[in-house]
């Protein structure tokens, strides 16, 4: 069985946020509602201060706490290892947001993260929370899988572009955007990444490039001690590192 996962090479990542923009365009995200975020933070103090960045999609955990806490089963894990939300079942209790250690979930009905409020600029009359002119085609929208523009009162998050990935051939080991036959099935952030820092493939297949990279280059997972077992791995090499923890300035 396929187990989709992602590898992000932090030595290659330039923090350009093309992944954030591509995700927002592909999935019709509200400004600021970055399913695929790049976190910027500083370490050290002047004059030894460093600006750092860290790309962070949903980790699509093998053992997802968001799925376990959901009281209705709206959040679930597919057989190919992707964590999705059924917007027709979500009651907007936000327990999944409380339980996600990575902070990758967004509640639709709250003050706009970026002004002006685009939900008011592009209001919707058809049950969507908003209706931007660049929205995803209706044929691709799938509320049972949390794909498209969400209705009001639900939680949303990165789907690994499930509307693309799920159409890939079942025996695919890697989805390589440089291969024209696979490009349209590859997640938007992987396709758009200018330095090619992102890789997407089957973690359950030891022959896949992603599996080999994790093994050969010591792929690490974020907050591994919590036991969620993310399916997003980071390659840190010699010149990069995952933030040791929450990048909190001690007060």
């Amino acid at each position, binding site marked *: 069985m396929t187990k989709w996962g992602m590898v992000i090479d932090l030595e290659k990542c330039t923090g350009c946020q093309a992944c954030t923009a591509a995700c927002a365009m592909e999935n019709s995200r509200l400004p600021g509602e970055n399913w695929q975020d790049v976190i910027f*933070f500083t370490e050290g103090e002047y004059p030894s201060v460093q600006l750092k960045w860290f790309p962070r999609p949903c980790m699509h955990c093998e053992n997802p706490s968001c799925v376990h*806490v959901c009281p209705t*089963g709206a959040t679930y894990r597919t057989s190919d290892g992707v964590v999705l939300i059924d917007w027709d079942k979500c009651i*907007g209790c936000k327990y999944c*947001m409380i339980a996600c250690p990575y902070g990758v979930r967004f509640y*639709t009905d709250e003050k*706009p993260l970026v002004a002006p409020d685009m939900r008011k600029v592009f209001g919707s009359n058809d049950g969507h929370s908003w209706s931007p002119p660049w929205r995803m085609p209706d044929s691709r929208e799938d509320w049972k899988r949390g794909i498209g523009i969400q209705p009001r009162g639900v939680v949303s998050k990165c789907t690994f572009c499930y509307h693309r990935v799920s159409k890939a051939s079942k025996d695919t080991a890697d989805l390589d955007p440089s291969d024209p036959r696979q490009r349209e099935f590859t997640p938007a952030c992987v396709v758009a990444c200018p330095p090619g820092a992102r890789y997407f493939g089957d973690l359950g297949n030891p022959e896949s490039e992603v599996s080999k990279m994790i093994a050969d280059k010591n792929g690490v997972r*974020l907050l591994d001690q919590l036991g969620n077992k993310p399916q997003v791995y980071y390659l840190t090499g010699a010149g990069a590192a995952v933030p040791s*923890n*929450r990048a909190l300035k001690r007060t």
Partner: protein
Amino acid sequence: MNSATEPRNFAEVALYLARLWRQEGTLRFLAIALNLGREKSLAGEMWKYGVVIGLLSFAFVAFMLLTEGGAAFNTSSDGINWGLAVSVYIFFALTSSGLTFIASLSMVFGFREYYSIAKRCIWLAIITLGAGFAVLALELGHPFRMLWAMPAGMQYLSPMFWMGVFYLIDLVLLLIKFDRLWHDDWDSPLSHFLSIASFVAVVLASGMLGLVFGSMVMRPMWYGSFTAVYFILTAALSGAATIVLATYMAYGYRHENMPEPLRSMASGKALPKVFATLSGIALFAVVTRLWTGLWSNLDGLEGFHALVRSPAFHVEVWAGLALPFALMIAPALQRRARWQITAGALVLLGMFIDRYQFLVTGQAVPMFKGAWASGLVEYAPSVTEWMMAVLGFAIVFACYGLGEKLFNLAGDPRHRLREGAEPKPAYAETGARAD
């Protein structure tokens, strides 16, 4: 304030109201309904102000939710996800659980002196739980969807699912139990069974509410089985404070107005003993939790440092727990109505703050939110959130006034003996001062 006659069932209530409407005309009927009678009474005033304030606050909240939706709250995805409304729900749900614990003292554990407050406890438990559910429903994105999605989903791994199941069972049992007491059935096998089942359900419900937070290993300020115990213990305290205040309210804040078994309990050692024990335990629980939080270097516990710097936390600890504890162990003060009422009010204030602080500081350490949220998250409830809290209290006040008027909340299995011998008071400290 107590009603002289009690309707036997809701059909009788409806018939009486219909007859009254026909006799008095619509306007006068509405005036009587708003005052709960032709003459002014404390119950009528509570009902009237509760209904008016409740309707106004509901209208405000409904308007804001219809025009702004959840944007009317100050909660956010990159900050505090659960805000004041959820803490108000926790406050009411745990108060309800505590009231059931207090009712169980007589109905399950056989401490007969507490019989005289049991029926009032059950009624208050029903309405505080109802108020909590009402506030929570306004906070949820899709409250009506919950009614089918939770049973259909059967998410047995979710603490929230079990919290819902146990609180629903608790509410149903409370309603049946109250119906039995309404019909003067205090000691049938069914009534005993309901009391025990209700006690078990409420232990599970309040404990499970604790585990909604206690299961969250990624939120270290909440994590651990202690949270469930903490919720159960502090629930008992807020239940005790509520019944003290509500009982005094019913008798014009004076011992002299109380019927004998109740007067003995209030002016004797029984009430201060329970109150001091519970506030002492709660104080111990709050301080030990703070100690481990401040002592540990674990990332995510920084919220405890913010807690110590918060003035509200000090109000909770010193005024809401330490002072009531001191009042209730001081021999010169513990039996006086004035200080018992003060202690009750302070404890409720303290518990309200506790639920809020517990909830908010537990989320104050942001989870991977980047440079824009690198300190602790700031949060202050919006006007809409405060109005939801007001609505919750208005529901409790209105329903308490209604219950006081409609049902004989001072009901006691011993009142059936009134025709015969007067039962002995539980505590015969007749010299106890009642001020």
